[in-house]
């Protein structure tokens, strides 16, 4: 088999001491809105505004992450296609990364959110910095 790394990168469950601590894949929001490259920005913006999201993950048909739209990209000209407006190739993280590690990285790099993907790039969810901080505070109590 591809090994434990591949299993964990797919967000599959494990047992052991680390499994007791929340990880990126556990905390990432699975209901993050997605869109395709050829969608119109104005349509996507309207769709996500209703759900109070300020970020959208751009994926292909296999759900592989291609780009990201954060507030700045969502505010662009409504007639642009997503592929013209998006931030291409965002940094992605594997589901098994600890929240502790994610908190450090996101704060240091001023990332409000980060896509969590499997090793083959498929979207698991969007990890929000505020969720990471809240989870860390909960653990600290």
């Amino acid at each position, binding site marked *: 088999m591809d090994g*434990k790394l591949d*299993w964990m990168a*797919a967000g*599959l469950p*494990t*047992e*052991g*001491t680390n499994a007791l601590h929340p990880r990126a894949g556990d905390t990432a929001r699975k209901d993050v809105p997605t869109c395709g490259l050829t969608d119109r920005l104005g349509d996507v913006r309207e769709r996500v505004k209703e759900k109070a999201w300020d970020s959208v993950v751009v994926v292909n048909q296999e759900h592989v992450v291609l780009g990201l739209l954060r507030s700045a990209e969502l505010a662009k000209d409504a007639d642009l296609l997503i592929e013209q407006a998006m931030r291409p190739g965002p940094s992605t993280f594997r589901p098994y990364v600890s929240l502790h590690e994610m908190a450090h990285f996101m704060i240091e790099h001023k990332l409000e959110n980060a896509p969590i993907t499997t090793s083959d790039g498929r979207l698991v969810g969007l990890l929000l910095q505020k969720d990471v901080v809240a989870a860390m505070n909960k653990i600290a109590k």
Partner: protein
Amino acid sequence: MPGEIRRDEVRKMIAQGAQLVEVLPSPEYEEDHLPGAVHLPLRQIEARATEILDRKRPVIVYCWDTS
């Protein structure tokens, strides 16, 4: 007969009763292992495999990655 399988096949075989064996050192096994996996470090395989494993069921052996 030994062969290499992928993640989906592993899940299928586990569901059918295959035995999982992690061969990494103790600290790594204790931190994370696949659900239900038994720990049999590489150096102990020959000495302990027959004692720990059921000969009648398939055995899936894994380490950290394929490299």
